[in-house]
């Protein structure tokens, strides 16, 4: 068991990868065995992630040096600079890892019947496992170039999965847009990595954080990193591709794409707080992030109000919700370096933003899954053509209500706990942020109520009379996420103490991250 924990950072990345390489071979033999294999490997990975997270909360940061004589030999004996690729898992990485494990498991189970009538299922599951690998790699790596490689794995497999339903033209267009945006973003990341390498001749985040000077080149590199990752998360001036890509993917994949955008957000936080944390001009960068976060929040929700396509409607809400997280963490960044302000409200604002990531990662995939269930049942994504579905789809209706209440921040659901945390702390920084947040929240509730009314309420439409509730595996996938929501709703303080605060502290405490690598000189 101790061995398993020691090796778990790489096992969490390598086991989905191994499973992805095996899936085509197993898929040739039997479909049932393949499905069981995919779900089984994801369950095992989820277990490993939880074990690793538990160990981190007791023993601190995990460092794993690939190919060295021992896992914690991060720097060769008698040498000063890390040479090999180092995986570094701290509270923040583990937090994102847990989210990713749960959502990908739910998505895989949901897919079992959601794509049951399509061809090419074996390749679908192969790509799904590769996407899981890419996500975990992005979250766990401590090396910039490795981050780029895993970013590419996640985005290429994501693009192929978005275009999965090849018989529709819009899926191809959405996939194409996604891959173009990803390619440009990742090449910008690579250029920025080159700029850093040109000066410091290293790729390790912890080592770079120690030696970084904040020269002009570093500023250009920081701008490139931030633009690239903001582009990948759909921050507002660069959000036009976002609903196009998200609305056409199979619903299970849309749920996972939400978390890949969170992974890009994680990378942006890692760059701002850990890599540049010691030298960054925090108020300026913080304010830039806050202003664009506000725009994102507001534009997303106003665009969502007009949408008729259920998946597009939810995608715009995803854009809008991402704004809350940018604001929460942006306020934390703006006061970084000022220990007093961090203690009064900075840490709370960051905790609120991070808590909102957790909640969003539960309710947004859930809502996308219910949208997929509606599509599965009616064969259309157009809300105006639906109606009276509550009569037949009892489970979906209940799960949709849970998701709606949660996203609009209705007490006592989990969306409320994180939003109130953001509102309270951000108010002390600048009141206008809180006011905008509340207005956006009200608009969100209004538009979701309207969508609920047009899809579920009213008389049963004649064309949907003969249908049945969606298959069981789709419901199980949704119930996993709903259970997450209920858990967070019931025990908010437990979650905050064990997951949110360690994650926020991991971002603030840059020294611990550096020491875990460079302090291990024997």
């Amino acid at each position, binding site marked *: 068991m101790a061995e398993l924990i020691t090796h778990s950072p790489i096992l969490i990345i390598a086991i989905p990868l191994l499973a992805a390489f095996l899936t085509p071979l197993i898929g040739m033999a039997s479909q049932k065995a393949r499905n069981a294999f995919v779900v089984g490997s994801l369950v095992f990975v989820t277990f490993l992630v939880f074990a690793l997270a538990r160990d981190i909360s007791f023993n601190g940061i995990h460092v794993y040096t690939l190919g060295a004589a021992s896992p914690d030999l991060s720097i060769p004996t008698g040498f000063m*600079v890390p040479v090999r*690729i180092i995986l570094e898992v701290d509270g923040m990485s583990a937090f994102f890892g847990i989210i990713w494990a749960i959502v990908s498991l739910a998505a895989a189970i949901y897919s079992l019947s959601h794509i049951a009538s399509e061809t090419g299922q074996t390749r679908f599951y192969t790509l799904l496992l590769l996407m899981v690998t890419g996500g975990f790699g992005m979250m766990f790596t401590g090396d910039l170039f490795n981050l780029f490689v895993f970013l590419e794995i996640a985005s290429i497999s994501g693009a*192929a999965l978005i275009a999965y339903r090849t018989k529709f033209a819009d899926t191809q267009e959405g996939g194409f847009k996604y891959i173009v945006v990803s390619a440009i973003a990742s090449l910008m990341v690579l250029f920025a990595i080159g700029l850093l390498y040109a000066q410091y001749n290293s790729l390790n985040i912890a080592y770079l954080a120690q030696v970084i000077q904040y020269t002009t080149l570093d500023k250009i590199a920081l701008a490139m990193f931030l633009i690239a990752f903001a582009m990948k998360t759909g921050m507002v001036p660069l959000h036009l591709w976002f609903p196009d890509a998200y609305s056409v993917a199979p619903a299970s994949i849309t749920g996972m794409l939400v978390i890949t955008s969170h992974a890009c957000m994680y990378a942006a936080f890692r760059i701002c707080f850990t890599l540049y944390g010691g030298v960054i001009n925090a108020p300026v960068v913080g304010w830039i992030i806050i202003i664009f976060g506000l725009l994102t929040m507001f534009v997303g929700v106003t665009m969502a109000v007009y949408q008729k396509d259920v998946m597009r409607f939810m995608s715009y809400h995803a854009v809008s919700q991402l704004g809350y997280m940018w604001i929460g963490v942006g306020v934390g960044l703006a006061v970084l370096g000022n220990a007093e302000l961090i203690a009064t409200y900075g840490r709370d604002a960051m905790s609120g933003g991070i808590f909102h990531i957790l909640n969003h990662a539960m309710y947004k995939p859930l809502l996308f899954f219910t949208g997929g269930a509606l599509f599965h049942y009616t064969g259309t994504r157009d809300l105006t053509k639906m109606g009276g579905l509550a009569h037949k789809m009892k489970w979906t209706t209940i799960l949709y209500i849970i998701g709606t209440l949660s996203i609009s921040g209705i007490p006592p659901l989990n969306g409320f706990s994180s939003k109130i945390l953001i509102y309270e702390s951000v108010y002390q920084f600048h009141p206008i942020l809180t006011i905008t947040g509340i207005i956006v929240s009200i608009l969100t509730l209004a538009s979701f109520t309207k969508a609920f009314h047009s899809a579920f309420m009213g008389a049963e439409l004649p064309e949907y009379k003969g249908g049945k509730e969606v298959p069981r595996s789709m419901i199980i996938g949704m119930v996993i996420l709903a259970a997450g929501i209920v858990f967070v709703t019931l025990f908010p303080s437990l979650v905050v103490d064990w997951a949110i605060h360690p994650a926020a502290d991991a971002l603030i405490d840059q020294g611990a991250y550096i020491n875990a690598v460079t302090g291990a000189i024997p």
Partner: protein
Amino acid sequence: MRRVTGWIVLIVLVAFLVWGVTLVHPFGDPDASAMDDYIIENSQEETGSNNVVAAVLFDYRGLDTLGEATILFTAVTGVLLLLRASKRKKETS
């Protein structure tokens, strides 16, 4: 309007790029790099490979190469997935 915005973005971007690359160290004269020197000196002993680039690819930065192979695998799977027939020719069990 779109064209004007496009030109502004383009000009700002190119200006920053050219400015940026002139700040990089002169070509052919990088700063002393501890990591690269370590690898060049020790790769033969540690990995037994005469080709230092191969040693970096498969030993020092092995996970990158695994990721690279994975990306190729992903792309091949993706291409075959997208070019598949969307209807089954005969029903499989």
